[in-house]
Structure formats: C-alpha cells, structure tokens
C-alpha cells in the first residue's frame, strides 16, 4: 500500500505568490485597498455612510492602516435589516451572482458578486487548494452543496481554475459518492468534516477501505471540528485533512486555509483584513490574545463589508509558519460568541427554532434543543413542554401537533428534527438567558 501522505514535491502556483508577499509590501497593498474600499462603501452604502457621519468621519481621515480602528463595525443584523439588496455598492446590472445563506429570522442573508468579485473569490479558493498541496492533475470531488450555499460553487470555481479535474457531486447520496471516490480515482475530497466521518463509516459498511484509494487530501470546512477528529479522519482514511474557513457575508469559503503544517489557518489578508477584538469592549486586542474575529473585505465591489464582526472566537498565531507564508495565521475556530450552532454544516440559530414553535402554537412553549452524534451524523431533538392550551384529550391531536412542530422546524432550518413532547416544568428555567441548547456531541 503506497504511502500517500509522504511529502509531495512542491508544486507552486503563481497565484500563491501573494501568500508570500514581504510584510511591508503587504501592508502597503492593504492600506491602498482599504482606502479605496472605504471610499466605495462611503459613496454607495447608506448604512456605512450614516455611521461614518455619526462619527464625524470621512474616507480622507484614513491615513494609515491603524486608522481602521476608527471605522464603525458591521454586524449580521445589518444584512437582515437591509434585506435583500440594501448593502450593495454596485448596480444590479453589474452583479453577476447572488448567493444566500440562512438568516436568523427565516429570511436568508443575500450576498452579491460582480465579475471582478468572482475572480477574486476564485483566486482565493485556488490559493486554498494550493495551500493544501493540490495542483493540476489532481481529481477533486466537490461534495459541498451546490446552489444558494456559497460552499459548492466557491470550491468548484477555485478547483477548476487550479487546473484540477473537478467532479461536482454536491452533497448527499453517500453510496454514490463512495462509488465515485472509488471508480474515478479521486485524489482530494471537499465536504464538511462531519460528513466525511459519516462517509468513512458508510464506506466501511460497503467494504471499501479509503486507505486503498488514491485519495490523499480532504479540504474540510463550514463547521468546527477538533484535532482528535482530524486524527481519527486521517488514520481511518490515510489522507491529510485540512481545515479551511470562510463565511458568506465576507465571500464564502476562501477567507483562510491551513497549509502543509496544519497548525493554524493563513488568512488571505491581501483581500480580507483581519482584526481580533474584545467582544464586550470592541477594543482591538494585542496579537496572540483571544477574541472575536473582525474582517474587512479589501476588494469586494458588489458588497463591501467594513469591520464585519464574525462572532467567531480565535487568536492570531504570532510565530512565523514553516511554510514561509507571510499572511498571518489564526487558530482554528472552536466556538462562537453567540448562541448559533452548526449541525451537518448548516448554521442554526435557536431563534429560528423558536420562530417555528411560535408559528405553530401561537405562544412560545418552553423548549430545549439537544444535539447528539449517532454513527457520525449529527442529530437534533427539540423537547417541547406540553401546555394546557395544547394538551388535547385525543392522541391523534397530540400526534398532529408533534407532526406540525416537526414540519415547521424542518421548514425553518432545513434539517429534520425529532420533536419530543415532555411534561411541563421538566425543562430547566433560568434567570436571564435561558440555556436552550444542550450540545452532547462531545467534541473531544
């Protein structure tokens, strides 16, 4: 059995050159782009202009990179409040792509791209794949969802531009994914880490040992995963498992990526300027301190985002990386600063589930969300307390209520949840913020 994880001869893609820009040049480039994008947002995005005026600021007040700390923040609610197109800086005729991702109140978050934006997105995804050791000649199976979700098309364009052979399987249909992995000589797979764990198990059931295949790399993102999960995935499949990071509000996948060293994710900071702030005080923290990641898109034309608060908690890794890249690394994202959770690669806010329960019952019952992992697949259960208003003497009525709740929740989050009716007063009440979520997936 060939040892496919031994070091590949380095294959360098010209577009990766930006990863190695000397720091002074990088900072100069960042400042020039920042000044331009702030001007663009000021001229075309009403929300940003209003906030600048409130602070008595104009784009001319930006005289160095450090002045970025004077700029106002953008938050997720901005996208919700300006749904659908209120944050666009380009006319619709220049927008060649729209994507959407889950929003907190059932309305999606809409993001837009001009032709230039698509080119930038493609280039950062190409750099992502290159950082993961992939190149022309690789056969890449893309099992991220194609459609409104940015994962599928983002990875696709990047892999294709890299010169690799791309198989757009999208998500689901695991047996067929395994057949293609086996029959098409796939060398790299893109999907969520939990899906890969599920796929490994299913492959074993089918008698397929992934270690016997030419598969040598996995490019995993869209949800948090741990070092021990990585070790398990690598041992069970014989691949190198890389972590990548992105978010639709910024561009999609392609904001940051691990390299061969697999210790931290390099942020493509010539396009996405990173800061770490204290989530309570909003002060920028010194390098190495843990805080909330804030990102500014330096090149996005259609929808520039200035100092967008990602709600992801991480820190800069200050030591230089052995790969030689000068773009800074962030530690892999472990948790978030709000109560969003991720299940099977999908972002879910407890408030979405609340909305669904509310819509069915008219009042909000006491509920609790319980997340578990069975056979590698995330499961979600919503326990709902029965109230006198909804307790019916008829079994069929209660079952109907259960079905209605399940249907509403599935409609809201896109995943089937198990609804369990429970006795009143069995769900813990608490002062202040209720603990709605029990995550028993035991990420070790």
């Amino acid at each position, binding site marked *: 059995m060939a040892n496919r994880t031994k070091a590949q001869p380095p294959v360098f893609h010209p577009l990766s050159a930006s990863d190695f820009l000397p720091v002074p040049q990088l900072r100069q480039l960042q400042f020039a782009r920042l000044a331009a994008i702030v001007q663009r947002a000021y001229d075309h995005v009403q929300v940003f202009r209003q906030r600048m005026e409130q602070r008595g600021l104009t784009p001319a007040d930006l005289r160095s990179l450090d002045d970025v700390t004077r700029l106002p923040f953008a938050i997720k609610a901005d996208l919700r409040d300006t749904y659908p197109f209120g944050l666009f800086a380009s006319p619709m005729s220049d927008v060649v792509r729209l994507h959407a991702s889950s929003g907190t109140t059932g309305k999606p978050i809409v993001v837009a791209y001009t032709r230039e934006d698509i080119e930038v997105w493609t280039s950062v995804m190409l750099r992502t794949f290159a950082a993961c050791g992939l190149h022309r000649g690789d056969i890449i199976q893309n099992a991220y969802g194609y459609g409104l979700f940015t994962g599928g098309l983002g990875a696709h364009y990047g892999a294709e531009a890299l010169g690799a052979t791309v198989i757009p399987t999208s998500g689901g249909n695991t047996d067929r994914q395994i057949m293609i992995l086996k029959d098409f000589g796939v060398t790299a797979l893109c999907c969520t880490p939990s899906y890969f764990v599920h796929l490994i198990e299913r492959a074993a059931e089918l008698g397929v040992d992934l270690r016997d295949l030419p598969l040598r790399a996995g490019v995993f993102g869209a949800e948090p995963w741990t070092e021990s999960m990585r070790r398990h995935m690598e041992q069970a499949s014989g691949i190198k498992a890389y972590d990548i990071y992105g978010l639709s509000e910024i561009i999609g996948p392609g904001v940051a990526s691990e390299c061969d060293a697999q210790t931290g994710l390099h942020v493509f900071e010539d396009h996405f300027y990173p800061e770490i702030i204290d989530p309570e005080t909003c002060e920028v923290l010194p390098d190495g301190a843990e805080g909330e990641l804030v990102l500014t898109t330096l090149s996005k034309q259609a929808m520039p985002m200035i100092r967008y608060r990602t709600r992801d908690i991480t820190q800069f890794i200050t030591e230089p990386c052995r790969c030689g890249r000068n773009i800074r690394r962030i530690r892999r994202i472990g948790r978030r600063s709000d109560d969003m959770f991720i299940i099977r690669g999908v972002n879910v806010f407890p408030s979405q589930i609340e909305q669904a329960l509310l819509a069915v019952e008219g009042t909000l019952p006491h509920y609790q969300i319980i997340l578990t992992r069975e056979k590698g697949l995330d499961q979600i259960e919503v326990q709902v307390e*029965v109230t006198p208003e909804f*307790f019916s*003497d*008829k079994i069929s009525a209660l079952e109907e209520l259960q079905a209605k709740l399940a249907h509403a929740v599935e409609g809201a989050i896109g995943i089937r949840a198990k609804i369990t*009716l429970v*006795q009143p*007063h069995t769900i813990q009440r608490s002062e202040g913020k209720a603990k709605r979520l029990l995550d028993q997936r035991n990420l070790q």
Partner: protein
Amino acid sequence: MKINQLSVFLENSPGRLSEPCKVLAAAGVNILTLSLADTEQFGILRLIVRDWRKARQVLEKAGCVVNVTEVVALEVQDRPGGLEEVLKIVEKAGINIEYMYAFTYRSRDQAIIVFCFEQPDQAIKALQAAGVNPIGDIDLYDRVEK
C-alpha cells in the same frame, strides 16, 4: 347526562404514571375508573373521579397538564351482543366514537362503559330516542363508589 373526565399528559418515562396517582391519593381523591392510552412517545391517562374540580386543582398544582372532556356513561347488558346493540344506535346516527373503556363496576347483569363521542349531545339524543339512557354523574358515582 355527561360525565366530566380528566385527562392527564404523561411523558413516556418511568415514574410518570405513579405521580398523578400519588397526588390524588394524598388529596383523598378516589379514582373510580381509569384508562391509559399510549403512543411510543407519550401517554394520556384518563380518569373518572367524583370531585373532578378538586382533582384537577391538585393535579395542576403538582405540575400536571390536565384536560376536562365530557364523556357519556352507558349501561350495557353484560352478555354477548350487549355492546353491539348500543353501537348500532350510534353508528346509525352517524356519530363517531373517539374511544371507550369499561368501569370495573359490575352489578348483576349490567356493565358500565364510558364513551367519548365526537358529538356527545347528538349521541345522547340518538340514544335516548332509542330508549337507552345515559347514566348521570351523581347516579354513577353513587353506584360505583360503594
């Protein structure tokens, strides 16, 4: 003519059934008859007690979810075909039976069966027209609680 039956929601886990029974016993409420309907997920405990208002109060105080449903108690001849005679009347009138269960009480050749009809008032009319009289609540309690 109608009896006020209590229904209690039971989560499907050990100990759930004994809770309401304990509460009622502590309050000195005697259960005249009961029925337990179940699904995989949960159960509904249906109770006939004399002082249903008091029973509901103590159960709700103890944190149970309680409903009150009007049911009809009928005397049925305790012989083969006894039940069928009653059912015929109701079916002819086109009235749906949601569920039914029997009292443990038995006197000579009569059994008492509790019916939950979809339209209880219409059911009572049809039964009375056919000469079958539902048992009133006080009468029922006196008979059963000897």
